């Protein structure tokens, strides 16, 4: 089975490819990708004309909550994968804070089997750092790694016990996987519900100080440096955290980090009318933090754009502010928000955006056949139209959830087709 994608504009950060070209796919792998027109010697079974389109590696999201098993009213592996491919994501890393948690091999196996049955996106589970995500003792990390988890995290909660984090970083080295941390000291969060600053003061909402993230990022960097382990900072949100990651990288510490579209495109000012679709953890920060995130995106400090896709039901969100669940969805809005804010309205080179969505995250989960169009790579390809201009309509999302902070935004950049292992899994109507 062969497929030729021609007449498109190829952008592959891993190969520094940026220009008109073609991609030739054979049996689920990239057989060729090159500038110019395809040689006449190719006799593809199928041809896609990508005129006017960008042809990039399939996007990879390091941070997705699929909610299954356990919270299927919010999202399922099936609905989450539909949302993923609709958003151009060929691969997603699903968080282990399910019920039960992904803390042993049988749950990993369940996720793999269900994802296989659904047959849309590649689903790579992350396992927990600690048993039952309780932060007390190490989960069976070896068993999880053997079952195929791509990272370890207690996401939703930090690993507060520094000793446990030190051992996790040391132990995970043996399997070459990163420990991902949700950096937040709960004693500094102190029941806060939004960023601490002028807006929390004015709104009378309990504030979450930015330093609650900073102290944990500082600790994690020191522990990674000491152990030689790999730490990945999830959903980085503060200016100081970005600065510390930048400095640690210069020292050679194995530290990486991800940023969400909501953190680089919104601030705590968005909370002004108590809309719970802007409530998440970490919270939307101040403008100076957002500016620091943009610098980190531009200068390479930040490695990946990840959505922290956190589906909730209307019942979870349509309540008084303090009682509303934390989190927003992002799979189906990430590309247009990132493209519009960073490239179209910002000064980010398109190649750098593609890197943040493809080979950047691929490196963090050690998937060298993902995130690139290099011959031999898996044939995951996203074809998108940067010029399409439209309004985000959360009501039309494939996700079960509607808790999207970007509903009604005028954006550019539309996913036209998502190809996973050579097969079209999504096509815009």
């Amino acid at each position: 089975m062969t497929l030729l994608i021609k007449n498109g504009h190829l952008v592959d950060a891993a190969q520094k490819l940026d220009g008109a070209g073609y991609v030739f796919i054979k049996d689920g792998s990239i057989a060729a990708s090159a500038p110019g027109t395809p040689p006449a010697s190719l006799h593809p079974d199928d041809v896609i004309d990508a005129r006017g389109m960008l042809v990039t590696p399939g996007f990879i999201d390091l941070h997705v909550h699929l909610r299954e098993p356990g919270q299927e009213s919010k999202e399922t592996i099936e609905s989450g994968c539909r949302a993923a491919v609709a958003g151009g994501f060929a691969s997603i890393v699903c968080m282990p804070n399910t019920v039960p948690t992904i803390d042993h091999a049988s749950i990993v196996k369940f996720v793999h089997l269900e994802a296989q049955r659904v047959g849309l996106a590649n689903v790579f589970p992350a396992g927990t750092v600690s048993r039952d995500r309780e932060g007390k003792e190490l989960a069976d990390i070896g068993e999880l790694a053997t079952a195929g988890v791509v990272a370890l995290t207690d996401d939703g909660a930090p690993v507060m016990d520094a000793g446990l984090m030190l051992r996790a970083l040391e132990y995970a080295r043996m399997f070459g996987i990163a420990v991902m941390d949700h950096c937040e000291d709960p004693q500094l969060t102190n029941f806060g519900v939004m960023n601490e600053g002028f807006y929390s003061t004015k709104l009378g909402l309990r504030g979450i100080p930015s330093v609650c993230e900073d102290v944990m990022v500082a600790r994690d960097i020191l522990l990674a440096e000491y152990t030689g382990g790999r730490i990945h900072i999830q959903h980085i949100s503060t200016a100081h955290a970005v600065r510390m990651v930048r400095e640690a990288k210069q020292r050679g510490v194995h530290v990486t980090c991800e940023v969400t579209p909501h953190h680089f495109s919104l601030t705590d000012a968005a909370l002004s009318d108590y809309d719970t679709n802007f409530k998440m953890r970490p919270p939307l920060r101040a403008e100076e933090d957002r500016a620091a995130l943009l610098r980190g995106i531009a200068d390479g400090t930040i490695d990946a754009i990840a959505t922290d896709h956190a589906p909730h039901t209307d019942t979870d969100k349509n309540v008084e502010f303090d009682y509303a669940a934390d989190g927003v969805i992002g799979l189906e809005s990430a590309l247009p928000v990132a493209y519009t804010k960073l490239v179209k309205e910002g000064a980010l080179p398109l190649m750098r955006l593609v890197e943040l969505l493809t080979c950047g995250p691929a490196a963090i989960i050690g998937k060298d056949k993902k995130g690139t169009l290099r011959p031999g790579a898996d044939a995951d390809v996203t074809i998108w139209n940067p010029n399409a201009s439209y309004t985000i309509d959360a009501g039309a999302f494939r996700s079960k959830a509607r808790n999207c902070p970007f509903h009604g935004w005028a954006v550019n950049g539309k996913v036209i087709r998502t190809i996973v292992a050579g097969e079209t899994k999504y096509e815009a109507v």
Partner: protein
Amino acid sequence: MAWTKKDLLDLEYLTAEEITTILDTARSFYEVSTRTIKKVPALRGKTVVNLFYEASTRTRASFEIAEKRLSADVLNVNVSVSSVTKGETLLDTVKNLCAYKIDVIVIRHSVSGSPLYLARNIEASVINAGDGAHEHPTQALLDIYTLRERLGELKGRQIAIVGDIAHSRVARSNIWGLTKLGAKVTVVAPPTLVPRDIERMGVAVSHRLDEAIARADAVNMLRIQREREKQTLFPSLREYSKLFGLDEEKIKDLPEGMLVMHPGPINRGVEISGAVADGPHSVILEQVTNGLAVRMAVLFLVAGGTSLHPESLGT
């Protein structure tokens, strides 16, 4: 000016003119409570629900008396927070009440923003009787009313607000209202009780009670809300009282006309000594009386009233 708003949710989004309209209307209503028959038919045929998700004696009593003196039909619903967290949602509760075609909901809730949330979802008018640490607009209006009666024009007047600013909805509403009317506001508290970036609300911050009251025309003493603290914010009530409590010693050299206010309930001997609370500077009970007139005015205006002359309403 004519009142056009469906709800009274906060003072932040009111103009100085709207605040003045409420205060002027309140002045007309003040007289009603001095009559032998303390009742006007202004809200006859209207149904008002007092929906309190937090314990309250004073504010609820004030609203209820105001409603009854306006001839409204009144229903009191008290909901403990524990029944909320396990049972019906706020919106379901209120939509059920609205099915009775009620006209006004007076709501107190421990979660900031809840009155706005309701106002956006129902047709009835919503009056905020205090939401979390956000706003308590009728309390600030009665404070401002009291200041206006005593001091006249508030432009350029120095008002100190002392105490638990961090947890205080009274402080926030007073800050918006007073600054809109041109007063200069200083908040006075230990740093742990001053919320971040409050200067951007247009106030000065002081950690010295003596300095702040020396130049104040009035001082509003807030109650320490230990029940809202999740972590210890100061060492002890004893120490707090020494540093920030108002007693006869601290007040003895101040001019006679300096006003001492308190939104109540008072913790005698903590933020204010009994002697000061009952002393010549105190206007605490005047605040309570004025509060009734202010709440009558607010109820009257949001329920669609336009006449500013209760005499014309008959008795």
